[in-house]
């Protein structure tokens, strides 16, 4: 029996909704599970039940206070903000030149920047370690600001360049005809309308710095200077074999929620920022 067009449409709809449901559940479930675990204590932790059973907030208090995750949150915030600030400041002029001015060597610079943004962090680890020691930054968050620039800067330059390239040429032409210098063009014409692009780029770079692990693990040894990923990675229980899953999940939820909220608020921008470099480049 041949299905009518309407039946086929209906069938297609059914599969689409089913797929959408499955995808959403798979994406959200691990985080949901982490929240469930974070609200359980004692023997409850080892219940594999998929609905909330108890609401204990001790894990959160414990993780933030005793385990020093609160302090680490502050460190992470400072490191990521300062890194992103420096990178944006330096990259806005560079991105303007790379996107709007034709000059010899431009392609090579862009290619170099792309390469640097992709190379493995471990390749600079020992050289960076030497630099950090030389500058007296070992075991301070300054070492992280310095080392995070390695991957943040090429990223911000690259994304801002693609954003700047998409702005209309007329914008500049009018200013050039009026005899405005490049500096005036950047500060008076481009900077005011770059706000949204800067915010998107900054946010993406912020997430990158917030999540970094290898440098943070290597250059920081004292508890009070740790950033969030290392603090969570290092959470230990009473014995080596007994991980405090409740605390770990509570800390994980705490550090993830701000990022998820930011991402959901700026959804559209983030998606455009993520894809800008790839699709058009």
């Amino acid at each position, binding site marked *: 029996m041949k299905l009518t067009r309407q039946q086929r449409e209906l069938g297609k709809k059914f599969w689409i909704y089913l797929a959408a449901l499955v995808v959403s559940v798979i994406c959200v479930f691990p985080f949901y599970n982490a929240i469930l675990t974070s609200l359980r204590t004692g023997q409850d932790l080892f219940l594999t039940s998929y609905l909330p059973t108890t609401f204990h907030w001790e894990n959160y208090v414990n993780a933030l206070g005793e385990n020093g995750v609160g302090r680490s949150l502050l460190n992470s915030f400072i490191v990521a903000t300062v890194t992103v600030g420096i990178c944006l400041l330096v990259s806005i002029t560079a991105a303007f030149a790379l996107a709007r001015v034709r000059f010899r060597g431009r392609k090579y610079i862009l290619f170099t920047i792309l390469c640097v943004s992709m190379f*493995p962090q471990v390749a600079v680890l020992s050289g960076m*370690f030497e630099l950090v*020691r030389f500058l007296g930054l070992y075991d301070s968050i300054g070492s992280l600001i310095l080392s995070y620039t390695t991957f943040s800067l090429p990223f911000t330059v690259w994304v801002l360049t693609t954003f700047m390239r998409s702005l209309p040429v007329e914008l500049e032409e009018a200013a050039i005809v009026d005899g405005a*210098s490049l*500096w005036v063009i950047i500060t008076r014409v481009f900077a005011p309308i770059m706000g949204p692009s800067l915010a998107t780029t900054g946010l993406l770079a912020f997430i990158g710095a917030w999540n970094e692990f290898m440098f943070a693990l290597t250059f920081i040894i004292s508890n009070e200077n740790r950033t969030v990923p290392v603090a969570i990675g290092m959470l230990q229980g009473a014995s080596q074999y007994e991980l405090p899953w409740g605390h770990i999940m509570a800390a994980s939820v705490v550090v993830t929620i701000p990022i998820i909220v930011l991402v959901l608020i700026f959804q559209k921008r983030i998606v455009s920022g993520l894809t800008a470099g790839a699709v058009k480049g």
Partner: protein
Amino acid sequence: MSHNSRTLPPSAAVVPPPAASAQGRKRSLQQRRARAAWLLVAPALILLFAVAGWPLLRTLFYSFTDAAMDTPEEYNFVGLANYLDFAEGERFGVLADPLWWQAVGNTLWFTACSVSLELFFGMLLALLMNEKFRGQGLVRAAILVPWAIPTIVTAKMWGWMFHDQYGVVNDLLLRVGLIETPLAWIAEPTLSMWAVVIADVWKTVPFMALMLLAALQMIPSDLYEAARVDGASAWQRFRRITLPLIMPAMIVALIFRVMDALRVFDLIYVLTSNSEATISISGYAREQMVSFQEMGVGSAASVLVFMMVAGIAACFLWINRFSHEGKEARE
């Protein structure tokens, strides 16, 4: 900034004579802008050299020495001994270390598995998101969640879900009846790499899907209508229209993901504690450097990591260019 550039050495400055044509004036403006451009790029380039170029050179330098991590200023040159050395009939160095080759194998296996799975699921997800249905916004929000979660948190979350006794994964598989006894996902060497791959795929499929979706949305819909009128099946439409048109974006996304997967470190370090069955090349280099304090050996391993990643990137670029040229030749 442009009046700054006028004070530069006059080597390239072409001052147009008063009677110069508009063409000449235009060129001089272009030249002035070009010189100013270098000034604008300079801070970024200098900073980039300081935090990336210089450390990279120093890593290369240290790879030829026997420096230790706690006293990097005391070292002797040892030539290529950190890479490969023959002494008393035995081989030493990174290239003679079976663990290094294990790490190379792990990293390549991880990259191949996770990136191909990501491409497959990312494509399915992108095709789904390209359809119109109610509640699309919610699904889009949901798929951004894995992407937004920090890698360390991903590692811990999945570590808990893969727990051999209390983990959700075993529980679900037992309930469905796919397994009869709980599996030791993290401890069992044959399974631990799959645990890492699954966690990585979960985290990075959204990125792949969003990249592919952006490309899908740029395909004009009348192409599909025309094909449908001509009686092309869904598979034919996908194969002949969708795939060729999103190919460039797909290749770029693939390059990004492969480069990212090749330098994997944090996920493995936290999820499986750098166990021998899962250690990556980055993990190996860092272990030599930090855990064993062998800065020289670690640097040598880092240089090898760098060369391997750069080599694979070069292959990709070469294939990409090659396929572009082929396409142009055919057209």
